[in-house]
């Protein structure tokens, strides 16, 4: 099941050229771009592993693309996303985040129904194992 998190996730996967153009836009806005990866894409898992430090002071997307190549080589079976952080006062948050790499098989999630006292029902999202 295709993971849909962040921007562009309902579109076909971005090509490297398109990723580069998005990063170029983020840098143009003065945002600091960083890469993160995870093997646990649960929607509640907001803390993905950092791939190196956020890249401050970049002028060109080539640096990010080089890191992305490295990250893909090191973690071919993980999800990798690009984050662009806006440090402007009042924002101080990630302004753009999108997935740039997916594992070969996306197992998706399973919905568990948990029966509680008095036929009360709760739900849990569980990751399917690949």
């Amino acid at each position, binding site marked *: 099941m295709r993971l849909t998190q962040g921007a562009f996730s309902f579109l076909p996967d971005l090509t490297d050229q398109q990723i580069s153009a998005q990063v170029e836009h983020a840098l143009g806005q003065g945002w600091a771009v960083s890469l993160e990866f995870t093997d646990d894409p649960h929607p509640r898992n907001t803390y993905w592993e950092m791939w190196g430090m956020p890249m401050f*002071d970049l002028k060109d997307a080539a640096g990010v693309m080089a890191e992305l190549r490295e990250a893909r080589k090191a973690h071919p079976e993980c999800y990798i996303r690009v984050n662009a952080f806006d440090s402007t006062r009042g924002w101080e948050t990630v302004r753009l985040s999108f997935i740039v790499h997916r594992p070969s098989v996306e197992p998706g999630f399973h919905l568990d129904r948990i029966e509680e006292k008095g036929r009360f029902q709760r739900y849990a999202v569980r990751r399917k194992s690949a």
Partner: protein
Amino acid sequence: MNTHPSPTPEVEPIVPAARLDLAEMYRESEIGPLLAELDRDLIGLKPVKNRIREIAAYLLVAKAREKLGLETSTPTLHMAFTGNPGTGKTTVALRMAGILHRLGYVRKGHLVSVTRDDLVGQYIGHTAPKTKEVLKRAMGGVLFIDEAYYLYRPENEKDYGQEAIEILLQVMENQRDDLVVILAGYADRMQTFFSANPGFRSRIAHHIDFPDYEDRELLEIAEVIAANEGYRFDEGAKAALADYVVARRTQPDFANARSIRNAFDRARLRQAIRLFEAGGEVDAEALSTITAAEIRASRVLGGTAP
């Protein structure tokens, strides 16, 4: 999933008889004004300017060849600037970034100026991230490594400089489209550096040697520096400055234009204290004139001031 190959840029069909107007390309690149500015702003440096003109012409022709499908690979653009201190290596590197940007060989045209400390780490595992970080910042522009020979310390085999050199060489080779590296340093020490690191020599296409300035050129530079700061030398000061240049050249640590700039800064201090101690009213003329006394007070000319 990410198997989409990045689409190759569309190649325009080449008509065998296609013709390109070089003069037109020259105008479009707006390189002319930049070269003229270089000529005007930088005093002396004739051989350097000639080399830059050659490189600019070569790059323009390479662009034309590329358009006609005669050439497919990007020309190597890494350079080495050798010359004594204060001969304008950094200034020219800055201009070079502009020229390469106009010609479309670097995308952003900024200059990242670094020395050994910015590239080499303090402990094991520190160097690679540090060097990569600098390289990433320089991408799309020009990386200027001042006093590059410090990267290589033959006397210490555990030195981390070697690691930085290896990463640099790799990027210089594989990401030629992304950045241009300029190594700078004194001629003799760069020579030793290159003979110890043949990888560098073969990856550098253009060696530019910066000659020392002549006395006359240094005087001109002094006047330009002063004019930029809103000062001028009176006739006596000019004569004193001519003596100063001759005397300073024979002393150790002579750094061409940089020595002149420092001399100007000190003369400016002495002028300030002279006006301050004289008291009374001053006019713009007095505030902006540097006299012979301020230059003659220098220790270089047997004066007492530092």
